[in-house]
């Protein structure tokens, strides 16, 4: 990770290099091992093995996408090009986070092993309005020029920023991917459609503000060696477009995957549950 004196070191132009980050690698391996241990423990307590195997595959894929986003040439160029940085965020928010949710579903929806306070807390944050608010606030706050600028000058803050994106979107995607009977699961197609449209608009608005701005938001990119005001603005517009258009496709795919053929049964189950 280039930090502190990034402006002096960075060179304009895409660099085909990988940026190996030991702390991140260790964290991802620990997460994978921890997940595997929890899964095996759950299997011993009688959880369906088929569901566990698919969950393991999804979780592992999510971990791999995080590694690719941050350490591949996409992440390695994130301080030279805002567009690469936004592409990195796209991968974390829209590919890695849903995969991790899919992997975590059998663990977290198996409420019995979770400590009560964690269970309560998770129930609260995965309530759809709360989840949408948390995700929006976190993503928007980290795109504020001061917060973003700080992250570029501090490795720990930068890592925390990426963690926030994953966490925010983990919470956002949860209500859509959980079954109606599971914690936080949206119960009707109407709710799912509304949640998807609201999410796409809130993320889309941020992308549009970036794409259509007539000045450079983040001065860091003006100081990259070889960059000009025009090239930085063009890069910023590309960054906005990379959030706006692939984001829309992600939400369409999510609609296809999460909207069900009939939700009458869900309503009845919810009504019975409420009684």
């Amino acid at each position, binding site marked *: 990770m280039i930090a502190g004196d990034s402006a002096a070191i960075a060179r304009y132009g895409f660099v085909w290099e990988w940026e190996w980050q030991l702390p991140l690698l260790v964290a991802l391996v620990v997460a994978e091992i921890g997940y595997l241990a929890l899964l095996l423990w759950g299997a011993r307590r009688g959880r369906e093995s088929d569901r566990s195997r698919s969950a393991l595959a999804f979780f592992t894929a999510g971990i791999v996408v995080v590694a690719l986003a941050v350490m591949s040439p996409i992440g390695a160029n994130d301080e030279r090009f805002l567009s690469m940085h936004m592409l990195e965020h796209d991968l974390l928010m829209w590919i890695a986070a849903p995969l991790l949710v899919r992997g975590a579903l059998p663990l977290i929806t198996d409420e019995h092993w979770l400590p009560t306070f964690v269970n309560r807390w998770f129930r609260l944050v995965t309530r759809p309005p709360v989840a949408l608010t948390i995700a929006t606030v976190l993503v928007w706050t980290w795109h504020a020029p001061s917060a973003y600028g700080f992250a570029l000058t501090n490795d720990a803050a930068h890592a925390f920023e990426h963690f926030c994106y994953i966490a925010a979107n983990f919470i956002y995607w949860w209500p859509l991917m959980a079954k109606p009977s599971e914690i936080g699961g949206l119960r009707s*197609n109407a709710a799912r459609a509304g949640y998807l449209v609201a999410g796409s608009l809130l993320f889309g608005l941020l992308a549009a503000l970036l794409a259509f701005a007539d000045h450079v938001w983040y001065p860091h990119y003006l100081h990259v060696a070889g960059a000009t005001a025009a090239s930085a603005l063009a890069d910023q517009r590309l960054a906005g477009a990379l959030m706006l258009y692939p984001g829309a496709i992600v939400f369409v795919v999510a609609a296809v995957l999460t909207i069900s053929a009939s939700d009458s049964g869900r309503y009845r189950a919810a009504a019975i549950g409420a009684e």
Partner: protein
Amino acid sequence: MTYGDVPPSAMLWAPGRSNGDVLRASLAYMVTGLASMLLMGLLGLLMRLDQAGMLIISPTWFYRVMTLHGSGMIASVLLAAMGGIAAAVSPTTRLSARALWIALVIYMMGNGFVILATLVGGFAGGWTVLYPLPEHGLVWSLGSALAIYAGYLFVALGLFLFCMQMLIALARSHGGLTKALAWRFLFSFGRDTRDALPRPVELIAAVIAIDGIAAATAGAIYLIPLFAQASHLITSVDALFAKNFVLLFGHTIANLSIYVTAGLVYAALPAYAKRAWPLTWPVAAAWNLIIPLMLLNYSHHLYADFAQPFALQLLGEIGSYAVALPSFIVTIIGALALMYRSGMRWSSASIFFALGLWGWVFGGMGALLDATIPVNQVMHNTLWVVAHFHTYFVLGALAFAWAYLSYMVEMLSPVPAHRGIDAATWLYGVGGAGFILMFFVSGANSVPRRFAVHLPQWQIYGRIAVPFVVLLALSLAWISWDLGTRMRSAWRATLDSSGVS
């Protein structure tokens, strides 16, 4: 809940099975569409206040607002109409609720793109996005032009998905598309009735689905080269090609919203006239004719383009005149005949239907005049054009859409309408008529359309129109409040898995 004396042609529930999933999706379409329409209407009020000299908006913002108002209003009305037609066919046709919800999400994301392109991106090239203007905007970037194109692409995709599944479902339920279109009955001049005839609303749904697919395809054909040009894959696009395809897309979509809502008249008016409205030969012939005619009449927007081939101009004029015959003569006379001495039950819904028939006639007459080439040469760039399509929309398509939503809520909810709602509906008619009349008068006095700043001598029309727009807004607020208070119970009623037969 029972139908009472509602004839089967106006039924909402599928006998013996549940269509509640589809009815819920339909309600979502209608409520979303009509709520969006209210917001777009407020933007319209803003523009009229500006033209009246009562509120000053900068020209840059005026054209942004105009673009959003135009595109948003057409998308909103069409969305409400799609919801209505899905509900109307659902008792006898198994639609996929999943496809309806997915289409809604895609469609609304398209609307989101349009909002972002105009309000954030500053796109102000008008809802028609006539090439090459979007590419060369002086006050907006190419990025915002691409965003509005993307918005239209998503709207087209949503419409395409909706129409495809409607067509497939109708063909399945009738054993083939030709049977859904009643062709054996049609081409035997009504003698061959071996096939079970579709209900009029089913035939209309098939017709609009075909035209909807054609319109969405035209939109894609228009947009693909523009995206290619923006990506520098090609250097230019033929402007005449682009204009023809964008109008084939946009004009057909605007037309679709009117014709789909006309289908709702067939579906619900029998409930108030307490008479059945079965498929007759003239109805089958008229609506089958709509398939080609709706795709031809867009060309009347290109009369001023000297490069347009003469044959297309001629087709535009013929199509514009011919399309009036089936819709006016068959639907309006049919509806009036259904109502005549029927002991009509008057409620908000049936008043809306009556207003809609009135508006359709007057809007259509204005359109016919504008479609006449010598008149068009003089009137096309005046507020006359704005007058005719506002008549179509406010007192035609929208009135029908509000009517059908009121009908659905009335059928589904045990909660009765509030007192005075009939009066509110009549006020909608008065407000709408006064508002539109001022557009007609302005047009007749050659006040140009699409002008952000009106000369002092033109402002009087706007000033007279504004109180009528306020009346329209107040009546809609009243009607929306009434429907809103009954919507929850209507929604719950759709959860009844057995349905009511």
